[in-house]
């Protein structure tokens, strides 16, 4: 039998507001435990939440960018459950009137174009973190993350492959980054994804029993978890067993999912309207002003880069896929670097370094100003391309100043004809055999001689000048 995999996503995204959703504590990641909290976000008795309007603005902007209908009359609800990372024993969320509904996101995969429907987007507060200390066998609570604003974006079950899921997440990430509403760092937990997955015989109209997978900390993990879980369910069904509706935890080391809790043990969250927060009304004027302030998104920018800068479609697409690259590119160009040169360096040397270091563009120290300086030095003929690549590798980790580095390492190009001629003479004298071979018509040994001269000059010469000097000397 041919099986079809059906997937829906619930994505939690931390919003990049400076302060928390219901108090003025910092949202900064990390910090010593319990240093970014106050009586409000730790739910001390008598304290009250007051909504951060920036959170509403960011959530509405995200809703608009995902083509959702925005709810004018917003309410918050309480989701009640006991857990030590949730100091009020309820999470303030939105159940009955989420801020955005009925959106859609176009995605492109190798299989073609497709539209993913957004069921809803709602605002809520994050919980704290429990840190287990195996040394003393105690669990400690860190409430720094309590009250960090989140939006949860729930799709319809529209995905059929892991590729579609990844394409959607890339698109979502890029959209939120363009809006500037989240930094979407998966490794810091600011973008977290739960995957609902079921399988059914191809052509079937009804859905199979689904499982929900948690603890997916990278796109790679999501992709592998989807493949694993689909196979697990298909095997169960083919053996005549049934899939149990449950929450499963992905274990990245074991490359498998494990049962966390079944539906029978599902909690009753006893949702009810949050009485401490009055309803929020969003006016038409407010939404209009948000629409007008929406930034230029990826597609528009990609077209503009092709049109204005003459970048190849592929390059423009690569850069616009990530807001951090767009920002870097535009700043480098603004500092005088030719756009094509800037793009080449970014997509070549820079991407290679990022890949080798397993880094995200937004985490690198290298600045556009430094790359622009490097490009300028090549254009001025002060360093050659090979040297520039070396310099780039060297300054990349700590953003060491390019000019200083070149000067301190004596890497400026040798443009002194006398020095080149002297080196040529020395090399010819040391390699009589090769010289004879060349003169006998074996032209390809010239490359070896060029290399030897460059070595003499410690690579700092212009290879074209060396080539010309050698040819002249061998005449």
């Amino acid at each position, binding site marked *: 039998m041919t099986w079809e995999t059906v997937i829906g996503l619930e994505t939690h995204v931390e919003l990049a507001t400076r302060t928390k959703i219901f108090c003025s504590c910092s949202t900064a990641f990390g910090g010593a435990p319990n240093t970014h909290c106050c*009586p409000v976000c*730790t*739910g*001390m*008795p*008598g*304290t*009250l*939440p*007051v*909504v951060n309007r920036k959170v509403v603005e960011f959530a509405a902007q995200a809703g608009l960018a995902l083509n959702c209908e925005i709810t004018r009359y917003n309410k918050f609800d*309480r989701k*009640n459950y*006991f857990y*030590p990372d949730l*100091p*009020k*024993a*309820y999470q303030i969320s939105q159940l009955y009137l989420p801020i955005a509904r009925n959106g859609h996101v176009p995605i492109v995969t190798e299989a073609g174009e497709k539209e993913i429907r957004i069921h809803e987007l709602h605002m809520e507060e994050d919980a704290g973190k429990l840190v287990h200390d195996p040394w003393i066998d105690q669990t400690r*609570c860190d409430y720094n993350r309590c009250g960090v604003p989140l939006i949860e974006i729930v799709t319809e079950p529209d995905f059929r492959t892991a590729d579609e899921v990844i394409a959607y997440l890339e698109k979502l990430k890029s959209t939120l980054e363009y809006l500037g509403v989240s930094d979407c760092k998966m490794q810091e937990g600011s973008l977290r994804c739960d995957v609902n997955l079921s399988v059914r015989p191809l052509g079937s109209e009804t859905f199979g029993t689904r499982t929900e997978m948690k603890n997916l900390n990278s796109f790679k993990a999501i992709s592998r978890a989807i493949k694993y879980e689909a196979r697990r369910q298909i095997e169960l069904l083919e053996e005549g067993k049934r899939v149990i509706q449950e929450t499963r935890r992905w274990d990245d080391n074991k490359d498998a999912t494990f049962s966390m809790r079944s539906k029978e043990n599902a909690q*009753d969250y*006893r*949702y*009810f*309207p949050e*009485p*401490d*927060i*009055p309803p929020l009304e969003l006016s038409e004027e407010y939404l209009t002003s948000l629409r007008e302030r929406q930034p230029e998104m990826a597609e528009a920018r990609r077209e503009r880069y092709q049109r204005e800068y003459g970048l190849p479609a592929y390059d423009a697409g690569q850069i616009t896929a990530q807001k951090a690259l767009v920002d870097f590119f535009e700043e480098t160009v603004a500092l005088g670097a030719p756009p094509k040169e800037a793009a080449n360096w970014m997509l070549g040397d820079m991407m290679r370094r990022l890949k080798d270091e397993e880094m995200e563009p937004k985490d690198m120290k290298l600045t556009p100003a430094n790359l622009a300086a490097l490009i300028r030095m090549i254009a001025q003929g002060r360093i050659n391309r090979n040297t520039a690549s070396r310099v780039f590798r060297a300054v990349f980790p700590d953003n060491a100043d390019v000019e200083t580095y070149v000067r301190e390492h004596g890497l400026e190009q040798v443009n002194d004809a006398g020095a080149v001629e002297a080196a040529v003479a020395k090399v010819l004298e040391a390699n009589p055999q090769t010289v004879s071979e060349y003169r006998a018509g074996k032209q390809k040994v010239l490359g070896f001689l060029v290399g030897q001269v460059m070595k003499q000059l410690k690579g700092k010469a212009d290879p074209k000048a060396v080539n010309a000097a050698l040819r002249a000397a061998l005449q």
Partner: protein
Amino acid sequence: MNGLRNLTALQLGAAIRRGEVSIPEAVETALEAAGEAGCNAFITFTAEQARKRAEELQKGLKDAAGPLYGVPMAIKDNICTKDVKTSCASKILGDFAPPYDATAALRLEEAGVVSIGKTNMDEFAMGSTTETSFYGPTLNPWNRGHVPGGSSGGSAAAVAGRSCWFAVGSDTGGSIRQPASYCGITGMKPTYGTVSRYGLIAYASSLDQIGPLARDAADCAAVLDAIQGQDPRDGTSLSFEAGGLLASLDGDIRGMKIGIPADCFGDGLNAEVRSAVLGVADVLRARGAEVVNLSLPVMEYVVPTYYIIAAAEASSNLSRFDGVKYGWRAEGYEDLVDLYCKTRTEGFGAEVKRRILLGTFVLSSGYYDAYYRKALQVKGLIKEAFDAACAKCDLLLTPVAPTTAPKLGESLSDPLQMYLSDIYTVSVNLAGLPGLSMPCGFDAAGMPIGAQLIGPALGDRNVLRAAYAFQQDTTWHTAAPAMAGKGGSEL
């Protein structure tokens, strides 16, 4: 200093400004009286802080000091006071001392009052008698065999027993007005949203409101002038023009229309209470008010609606008391769930547990629509009925409670009967309106009777104006229980 103890808060404030009484003298008088009263009105005395503050205030006394400057008062133990134990009269909070002040407490401090301590109450404000306190019941100063009412029973007893000049309490379903009535003092629940709830440990967030318990309407007005006003820390606090209540009291209520809802004077109302409350209408009429009869056909729904909504919110609000972060923690637990269960089983009293269970039930999946959602709808209808009644008159006059203060131990044996006695007060919270309780007589046993004035939303001023006018022509509010003002313990 009997004379001193029988002054109103405003009279004492004036005497302090005139230099006739020093603030330390007033504080010593209060501490001594509170110590001698023997009504168990206080959970915590803050004598040392009060003495120190009295000295500082005395030094800072200026001619332009406010009307309550230097006046000793008390704060209900569910209102957070920085570094001072705030227990909600529950075992589960242990010796919890919050690192912050409630906004209302801060505003009172700015007005220059001196808190002498934290008053007893029903545990988490759940109860009508102050008998559910972990710290034992408060006794009624008029007769120690009777309850003072609740849940702000400690505040009411402290004021009635002349241990302090006023107190602040909280009112979720009558918790200021009913004990004020049982103790023969004046108490007011202002319009929902006019006093910040920041720092008030929540029972039912949509109904809770802080207000004064005092000797008379003028004192209540002065306290509300100090504590009312929008607070950026409370999203439900209203934007409105606060202040000026005290200045508005002129005794002139000519043309004011007082509505008497027949639905509040039917079966179940004690005859002595009924006649004393209706007597208020005669006094107001004699002062030039117009009295009209009207109907309020929602009274049969108010008690069930209140107990569903209040219990639901309470079940969620009280979930944070789990022994993990602060307060009291049970010993000998095996794991996390056991820690929760043991702490909450041992830490909460029976009435609190009853309401948590009720609230958890009405919010459960499968029952939410039948109970909670329906209660919210009925709440809307109750509000509409009150709005309609308020459109026909300026104020409503009703009883506060069907009877005078019951005897100790009588109520807890029959919680349902106790819930039903909240009928005249809970509707005011459900509709978010201002309501005031003032003394209007005594029953044959010598226990005080209270009358309730209810105004439209943000109509707090007219409520106080009418009560003030009434108190110009009556002396019920000046009567003191025999034990008070004598400085002795002959009772």
